[in-house]
């Protein structure tokens, strides 16, 4: 269970300081000293954990390099590569011009010929411009070349709905990319799994699209050591339970856990599974959980239409139909562009109260269950 302070920040309550603004204001090289001090403490922020992952992997393997807009001298818009250019040079932490399709393709070519590039999308939404390269080349080249070339690249960046960033900066590309054959989709959610998963993704020979979330960069937590890697294909059981399984990923994990606080008080015992691997799904964890609880709720931030939840729901229906006591419930964002106004933005995405209400609907009231 997470400290409630972290949960509040991540859930994005108005009372917490807006993490995004603070991050942008503070992105200056002078912070390097501060980072060293923070590293000695046990808890670090997610952006630091990601930075550690990139730093450690670049140190370990000289073919690992970073490409993206403002990753070098600026240190990354979310500080994930802060100061790394000083340590590794301008070529290993390459500041690209603003041409996503071009530099993603350059990453593909570099990966095919022996390097291991990490391509950063300043915002995941910008990678829509690189869809040509991500779909046709990144995902497919290992296959169309008959296995002659591998594309060991990581495409990472922040996505998701932030704090009133407007429609185009609030996109959830996991649903757009999930059909591309040949790529793996991974969504990190905690400091620990962010670092471990990014390290594993960098070492993987497959192209991995690594989803971070704009509002999670300042979440605090403990990170693992230099050799702690997570499995890219495994889901994480966040909370064991018996009543219902709530599948979630990325920032919605915190929304769900906040709802769980309320649900526990009301007498429910939900199991929470963080998918982590959005493609492929970890069918072992998913099926084990559903066989136990016999009910599934999917809480996601992407749109209802064609989202990760849509795929998961179909898969659960096809392979675990007889294990279900209730139809799979999907809580997803509305199929609308994310408005700027706070109230409309809040109405677009899933709130903790909706999760509570869904669990109550699916499990029935506690009075009935105890009877």
């Amino acid at each position, binding site marked *: 269970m997470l400290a409630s302070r972290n949960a509040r920040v991540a859930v994005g309550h108005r009372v917490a300081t807006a993490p995004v603004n603070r991050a942008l204001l503070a992105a200056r090289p002078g912070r390097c000293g501060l980072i060293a001090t923070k590293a000695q403490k046990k808890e670090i922020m997610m952006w630091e954990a990601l930075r550690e992952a990139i730093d450690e992997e670049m140190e370990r393997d000289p073919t690992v390099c970073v490409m993206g807009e403002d990753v070098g001298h600026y240190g990354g818009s979310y500080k994930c590569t802060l100061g790394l250019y000083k340590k590794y040079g301008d070529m290993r932490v390459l500041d690209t011009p603003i041409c996503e399709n071009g530099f993603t*393709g350059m990453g*593909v*070519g*570099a990966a095919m010929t022996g390097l291991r590039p990490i391509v950063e999308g300043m915002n995941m939404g910008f990678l829509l411009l690189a869809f040509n390269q991500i779909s046709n080349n990144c995902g497919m*080249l*290992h296959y169309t*070349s008959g296995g002659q070339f*591998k594309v060991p690249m990581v495409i990472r960046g922040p996505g998701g709905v932030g704090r009133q960033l407007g429609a185009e900066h609030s996109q959830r590309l996991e649903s757009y990319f999930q059909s591309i054959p040949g790529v793996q989709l991974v969504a990190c959610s905690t400091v620990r799994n962010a670092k471990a998963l990014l390290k594993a993704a960098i070492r993987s020979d497959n192209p991995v699209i690594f989803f971070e979330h704009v509002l999670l960069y300042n979440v605090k937590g403990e990170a693992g050591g230099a050799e702690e890697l997570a499995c*890219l294909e495994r889901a994480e059981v966040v909370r064991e339970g018996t009543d219902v399984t709530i599948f979630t990923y990325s920032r919605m994990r915190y929304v769900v856990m906040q709802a769980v606080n309320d649900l526990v008080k009301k007498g429910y015992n939900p199991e929470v599974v963080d998918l982590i691997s959005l493609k492929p799904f*970890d069918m072992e964890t998913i099926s084990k959980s559903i066989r136990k609880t016999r009910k599934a709720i999917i809480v996601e931030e992407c749109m209802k239409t064609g989202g990760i939840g849509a795929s998961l729901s179909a898969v659960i229906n096809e392979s675990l139909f007889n294990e279900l006591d209730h139809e799979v419930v999907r809580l997803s964002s509305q199929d609308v562009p994310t408005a700027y106004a706070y109230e409309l933005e809040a109405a677009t995405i899933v709130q903790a109260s909706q999760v509570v209400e869904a669990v109550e609907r699916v499990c029935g009231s506690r009075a009935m269950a105890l009877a």
Partner: protein
Amino acid sequence: YISIPDSSALVIRIPTDYCLLASALRVPARMQVLLKQRSGIRPSQPGRRAVQVRAVAAPVKSAAATAKTPLVTPEVAKDLYYDMVLGREFEEMCAQMYYRGKMFGFVHLYSGQEAVSTGVIRLLRPDDYVVSTYRDHVHALSKGVSAREVMAELFGKKTGCCRGQGGSMHMFSSKHNLLGGYAFIGEGIPVGLGAAFQSKYRRDVLGDEKADSVTCSFFGDGTCNVGQFYESLNMAALYKLPHVFVVENNLWAIGMSHLRATSRTSGDVDPYIYKKGPAFGMPGVLVDGMDVLKVRQVAQEAIERARRGEGPTLIEAETYRFRGHSLADPDELRSKEEKARYQARDPIPQLKAYMLEQGLATEADIKEIEARVAEEVDDCVKFADESPKPERGQLLENVFADPRGFGIAEDGRYRYQQPGFSSGTAVVS
């Protein structure tokens, strides 16, 4: 050809005035007239600095070289001739095979453009890279991929260079450093840039002094309006990547004439792609793409420049495809006169005449080369015909380099570990 000043340092000036260039490149007089009419008379501006390309070493021939001395050795000439004839005969055989139902889909033939592929690629080392578009059969052959593997790939057999999974438009060879074969024009150029970036990275970051491989990207006039082309020009010049952009301007993008699709530089009557090079900070060269020796000369400069670390070059080769865009193209929009004009400039008879005239080869040599090519083409068809088709089990084998990417099944094992996996499906549930 380009006249050489009498000095030890060789500087080749690339004039931006089209007419001067036409005469410098020894374009036939009648062609010059046509070009003059196309380009409009624009006086060269003396105040403008011409883009300069510096040669790497003293020229093979002394400064007193005249038109009488051959530009290449007999061995090189025969290799060029062999490569062009192989390209032509292979493509003609593809047409036959397509109409006989041995290959399907979109097949784009290179007939007529051989001088560009041969002129550039025969200069490359095995560790240099080539990136192409869907018109890639001859690029594959010039780079060294065996005709057998290419034809088998076209027939969709598992002995093809891509195990039958790529097809006509996706020729890849890790052994010969052919990075594809792309169906969307423009999407291969950044990949080529990546290979060039890797070469520079190996030198500058990994400290490999011997890392100086060059990448050549081939694409057409239509591609020069795709955004990725400009993104790539910018990055290649910015990072001084060892990359050569080779535009095979055959004037037509399916049925869209280059003159209708591309805007002109201010003051010009016709669009010139090579002029876009200097706009991004690299030399832009226009060359007669129907003459293999001219292409070779220009490519030599560009490749050596890139190898020295001086950055990219944009080469526009004026060429023509004798057949339609693909075998499905009725090719009704191109005039008979235009086709006849370019047929008269067929690169293969040009080189043949040059070899005989310069004494680089005898009639017997040429016949022997042509017989060898005919034999090779027959052999590759036989090989492809007799090759086995891919089995069902091949379906899932190359989706992921690391098959763990298929995920974990319900029983806790990775899907790829389950028996019969590859003849199954990639379906998740």
